[in-house]
């Protein structure tokens, strides 16, 4: 079980958290203006890297906040967690 550092609550066990997918996938500012392909890319395409991965978590059974994490998908080690908008 991962030990995840919530930027607000500190280190907490993984079962308190809910994984919320890849981070920094920006919703088009004006969806009506983008093509079907571009919209599909936003909806579905993911980098799914083997290595450093920017992802989102929510401290669902804690403070309830969403935040960003950088995790290595081969070792599963989290190197940094930051509040939305912050940079590590």
């Amino acid at each position: 079980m991962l030990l995840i550092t919530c930027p607000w609550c500190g280190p907490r066990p993984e079962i308190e958290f809910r994984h919320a997918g890849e981070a920094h996938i920006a919703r088009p500012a004006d969806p009506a203006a983008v093509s079907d392909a571009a919209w599909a890319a936003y909806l579905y395409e993911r980098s799914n890297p083997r290595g450093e991965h920017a992802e989102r978590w929510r401290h669902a059974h804690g403070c309830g906040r969403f935040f960003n994490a950088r995790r290595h998908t081969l070792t599963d080690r989290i190197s940094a967690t930051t509040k939305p908008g912050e940079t590590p």
Partner: protein
Amino acid sequence: MRLPSGGRIDRGKPLRFTFDGRAYSGVAGDTLASALLANGVHLLGRSFKYHRPRGLLSAGAEEPNALVELDCGPGRREPNTRATMVPLVEGLTARSQNRFPSLRLDLAAAASLFGPLLPAGFYYKTFLGPGREAWHRRWEPLIRRMAGLGRAPEAPDPDRYAHRYAHCETLVIGAGRAGIAAALAAAEAGDRVILCDEQPELGGRRLLSAGEVPGLAALRANPRVTLLPRTTAFHYGLQNFVSLAEILDRPDGLRERLWQVRAVRVVLATGALERPLPFRDNDRPGVMLADAARAYAARWAVLPGRQAVLLAAHDSGYEAAFALQEAGARIAAILDLRAAPPLADTARARGIEVRAAHGIAATRGGVRVSGVLAAPLRPDGSPDAARATPISCDLVLMAGGWTPNLALFSQARGKLRWDAAADAFLPGEVAEALTCTGACATGRGPGHPVAAIAAGALTARHAFVDPQNDVTTRDIALAVQEGFRAIEHVKRYTTTGMATDQGKVGGMLGLATAAAASGRTVPETGHTTFRPPYTPVSFGTLAGRHRGPLFDPIRTPPSHEWAEARGAVFEPVGQWQRARAYPQAGEALREAVARECLAVRQQAGLLDASTLGKIEITGPDAAELLERCYVNAVHSLRPGRCRYALLLREDGFLFDDGVLARLAEDRFHLTTTTGGAAHVLHLLEDYAQTEFPELRAWLTSTTEHWGVAALQGPAAREMLAPLVRGCDLAALPHMAVTEAEVAGIPARLFRVSFTGEPGYEINVPSDRLPALWEALIDAGATPYGTDAMHVLRAEKGYVIVGQETDGTVTPLDLGLGWAIGKGKRDFIGKRSLARAEMQRPDRRQLVGLAPLDGRLPEEGAQLLATSGARVAEGHVTSAYASAALGKPIALGLLAGGRARHGETVQATRLDCPRQPLLVVPPVFWDPEGKRLHG
């Protein structure tokens, strides 16, 4: 044979037990294994494939042969238990396994006659016919009967299993010399320390000598130290999250406890495992690991044999032989694979014959070893049978050298590195805060190289590497010959290392054999991955207390006790138990539902709708947040009014529906489906926090604060009016909300309907709902359950998310386009609705379906254009007997359905070929909606 003195046992406490029905006695401190040995019982099991007679190989957790069935009464039968790990208790009942009719005479042993036909992987090459299902019908049943070891339990396990989370600075695994030293050091540094060991007594190999184990007293005295005997660390998770299985066997039925330890540092002191040696018939009862034989004599004062031959590849064997000699055994000879055994002279000085560069050509005997053929080694390391001489003995000691026990280190994703000097894999890099100490870090010094040992046994017959799975050196050589070079392939093709000892006994030897057979070195060949658990763990230990009612929370709405007292029938809806109907005496469920439906249509019915999700949205930007998420126009919603609200996923498919009520400019009351409550809140929080962080709007779940009584029916208003203070019901229009007092309880009073009748949903604090409920019943309302609710909403053509929808349905498909706010620039999923696919006229659309043969359609039935058609154009989503209409009705999704009203389609049935259904509009009851606004 029990020795007159010595051992860590209590001769004063005799214990009776039975094995295969025969009564024996042992003493306190015995294991089942030592007690059987003390009683001269050496034949303890039969092997997996050939059913060869087997006895004890080891004295510990790695035991591959002595697996027994324990029977501790009804529901407490337990297969495949290692006799070496069972502390003897009064009345213990054990049986041997995998034999028929008896252990001594096992007919299945005839399998060994066909041995030549059953090499590694034989089953891939045969049983191919005759006929298509030959394997499944003819051969597989035979194989299955022969395979398997013990018998599964037959009754539910009555025992309890506990869980405990624990946290410490230092977790030490293994309580031998090194482990105890590490624990002492950490304790002195002030750490919280947990020290666990799989054995009932802490001390590891120190237990081979008499007396108190040094250091234990100090650890016991330290309150920050937790000592856990009979506790196996079996799973090593990320960031030092280690799972331990503690065996309690408490008489009150608390059987085991799962410890989940988060440790800052972990110290592995897991020692090393002695290896057996490969030679012909090395599996006969009486052939034993040297250190195990020594342990039986030293710890349990049992002599495993009177006359022993030691086959040594490592000096540790000599220590064992000397110890057994001192205990009274005669050492007939020491055969040493090495040309110049360092301890040869010491042995000779003790009057023991030592033959260097010798091996064993074969063992003699039946169900117990009676002798060996000692043979000089050829240049290739194999024993030269032609020059062999017999030596009689009743015990053969194997000292094959030691393999550092690094299973947990490997589970911790540590890399093993081959150390030529140690002739072993040793711990390499590891990312965890983890250190290895003692024999698991260094081994026990090199002996005869394992590669040479394997090379010398490549051609031997019946030289077992994995005794339980009956894998021989020849099987491994054959696998290599057949092109299985990757060690994982060799393992899978021969099954070596896949027995219940998980390769603890034969893993290293197997891989050395594969290396020798393929002309590679051991490091070139590599090793297989160590998989959890370290030793087998009961399902119950992992499941813990989560069984029956504790398996998953049972949630009940506030009227549950009332409903139970009235004999209501319940149905599970997710974790909730909801009243399905309230049958009266002698009334069938179907009849009850019909009566409840009519009561609502003709008078008024009462439903507990408390399970609906509720979210309070507050803040100056509350309306803007909802405007951006829901499909509806929210800004235009006036305080005091409600809207039927739809929430989509970004892919355009319907996610949830509910009622959105505006209580004030900056405050909304939103309902969700029962199942969707948590998901909707999570999704809205996601957008509020990450997409629109600039909005000042906050979400709070009020699902369980509000109890909801839905009063529905033409008489609802007159029933409710007398109970209401502070609001004029007549002035409250459909889809409106107001604060009021109902039956003396402060309430949020909604005028909404999920039935097509005028109705109210009265929200009061859930602890007051029972009082409100009683008041409404007294006022004449008829309680109705979820079944009636389903029928009533279907008669009116209202959809249920999850029944009419399945995650591939858009609001347009359901004819709910009207709910979408006109001219809204954006909302969740809007862009997806614009895709051509979502606009196709032949999408599956909601329709009503009227059976032309008067029979109730089957839910899930496929809809066909003609009875001969093979391609479905839709399906029946709901079908009910409508009491109000006096006929069955159905809703369905049909390709281009809205344009096909009046058409007849054919529905599939399970009980007959087809059923004709007339496509009609989905609203069967009061299409003009006169009643709603009446």
